[in-house]
């Protein structure tokens, strides 16, 4: 088990309110981890702390053993830590091919070039087409994103993450806003992610969680209350209490 990503005793408080309390977890290459928890458990706050969009009060974030806690969000991305957004953030007037090409060019440090065009760069074009075909977005390659369906925009978010070739990918509710009948499209897309990539996914759709994750971490009121296999999580008393409150006892008593 080679640890690629670790969080050590991460803390965050807003005034007197502790929203993240001593969260520690580590991920190895190829990990498929689901981070679940009731509403307000601090899941998105956790992602924002890890990616640097929020400053942690204390604690460390490590990539490949290197402390990246002081890095700006941009440098964390360059170190291989990439996130997707709970609500799609895309360029509505640009096409999927422009999105993916821009991500590839950025990864290769060519996004500052002031001449030429990605259409004339065979390598970029080949990789871009490959990614779009993998996610079944080939037919929409040159339609402005504002004109394509939300579910396909979600797929494009995943395409962007693939194009950046991260070491660790944080997916914030990849299936949010997608009709339940189309969740399989997201699931298929997630299955196409490279095998050695460590993926942490926040998700509410438990079907998706149980099919995708090999490991589940449960966050409640800002603290980790469970870290283990998907099989054991449903049996765990503390998890049941976090989700169901006093009803967990009521049902077991009855």
């Amino acid at each position, binding site marked *: 088990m080679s640890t690629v990503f670790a969080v050590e005793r991460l803390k965050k408080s807003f005034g007197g309110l502790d929203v993240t309390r001593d969260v520690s977890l580590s991920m190895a290459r190829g990990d498929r981890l689901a981070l679940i928890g009731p509403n307000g458990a601090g899941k998105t706050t956790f992602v924002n702390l890890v990616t640097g969009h929020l400053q942690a009060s204390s604690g460390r974030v490590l990539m490949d053993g290197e402390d990246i806690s002081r890095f700006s*969000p941009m440098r964390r991305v360059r170190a291989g830590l990439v996130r997707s957004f709970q609500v799609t953030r895309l*360029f509505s007037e640009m096409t999927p091919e422009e999105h993916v090409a821009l991500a590839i060019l950025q990864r290769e440090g060519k996004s500052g070039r002031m001449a030429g065009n*990605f*259409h004339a760069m065979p390598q970029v074009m080949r990789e871009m087409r490959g990614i779009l*075909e993998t996610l079944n977005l*080939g*037919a929409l390659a040159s*339609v402005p994103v504002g004109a394509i369906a939300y579910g396909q925009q979600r797929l494009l978010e995943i395409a962007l993450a693939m194009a950046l070739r991260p070491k660790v990918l944080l997916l914030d509710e990849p299936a949010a806003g997608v009709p339940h009948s189309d969740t399989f499209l997201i699931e298929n897309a997630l299955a196409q992610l490279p095998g050695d990539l460590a993926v942490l996914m926040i998700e509410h759709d438990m079907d998706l969680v149980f099919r995708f994750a090999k490991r589940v971490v449960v966050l409640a009121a800002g603290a980790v209350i469970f870290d283990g296999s998907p099989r054991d999580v449903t049996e765990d008393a503390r998890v049941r209490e976090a989700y169901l409150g006093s009803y967990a006892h009521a049902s077991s008593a009855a």
Partner: protein
Amino acid sequence: MSATDISPSAAPAVRTGRPWQRDLIGVAVILLAAIGGYVLFPDNLALLTRIIAIMLLVLSLDLVTGYCGVATLGHAALFGAGAYAAGIAAVTFGITEPLSMIGIGAIAGAVAGLVSGVVILRGHGLAQLVLSIAVIHLFHEAANKASTYTGGSDGLSGIAPDPLLGLFAFDLWGRTAYVFGIVLLIAVFVLLRILVRSPFGMLCRGIRQDPVRVSAMGASVKASLIRMYVISGAVAGIGGALNAVSTQVVGLDSLSFTNSAEALVMLVLGGAGSLFGALAGTVVFMWFEHVVSAANPFHWLTIVGALLIAVVLFAPKGLYGTAADLARRFARSKP
């Protein structure tokens, strides 16, 4: 190759597939308009040259406002810096070779772009707009106070550029200045077309639409915007220097808030986010102003205001943007 090329969305692919054609059409249109202007209005070449200089200012503003989404009412600072630098180079330091004056104007504009970019990009939204107004007022006041070099409120006169390339003297009718302006405009236009199509141009369009997504890709939003500001400054500086060379005077009005605001109005009128829109807006606004103010010197501003309200209400994408939309709809309904 084959599967994607015969996709249902082949039409927009053609648009991006042959960009050089549109560049050539653009250059041809500018040339035709230039020849038309020369033949039809031989007595108005000074006005036409002034339009070209302002076109460069509006193109420059389009780079930061139309492509990057930065709201600014202080863009004339870059234009005025170019004009004063070229003028001071000629009057104080005796650099009267016109191409060198343009070069000095471009450099001064780029420096002014760097300075005002660093200041303006500290803020967002309303704060950004207010900072830009502060910048133009500071530039204006600096030029006013440094009257030893700038002539203060009297303006900087006595600029006497050498003949262009040692061959073509700047004549009383403004023919040389006009042709010089057209050549500069075409050169800048072609370079900017390459720029907006480049990866950097694509990155800037991304920044306008969602800066958070751009930084989540690992790109620096701030550094990219400042870089675009410097490029924009060079373009505006060329415009200012052209104005100094052609009119042989530089006045404080080149560094005025009014000049900045009018440039923004021209951009909105033509259509922000398109180089063609910037050119069209400048021509329409300045020509309209010229004709209407001659026809009705008392109420011309009212008429200009009415035109603006009509465009903003009924053609929010600007004259060029709306025309392009109509042309596209027409082309789609025909086959």
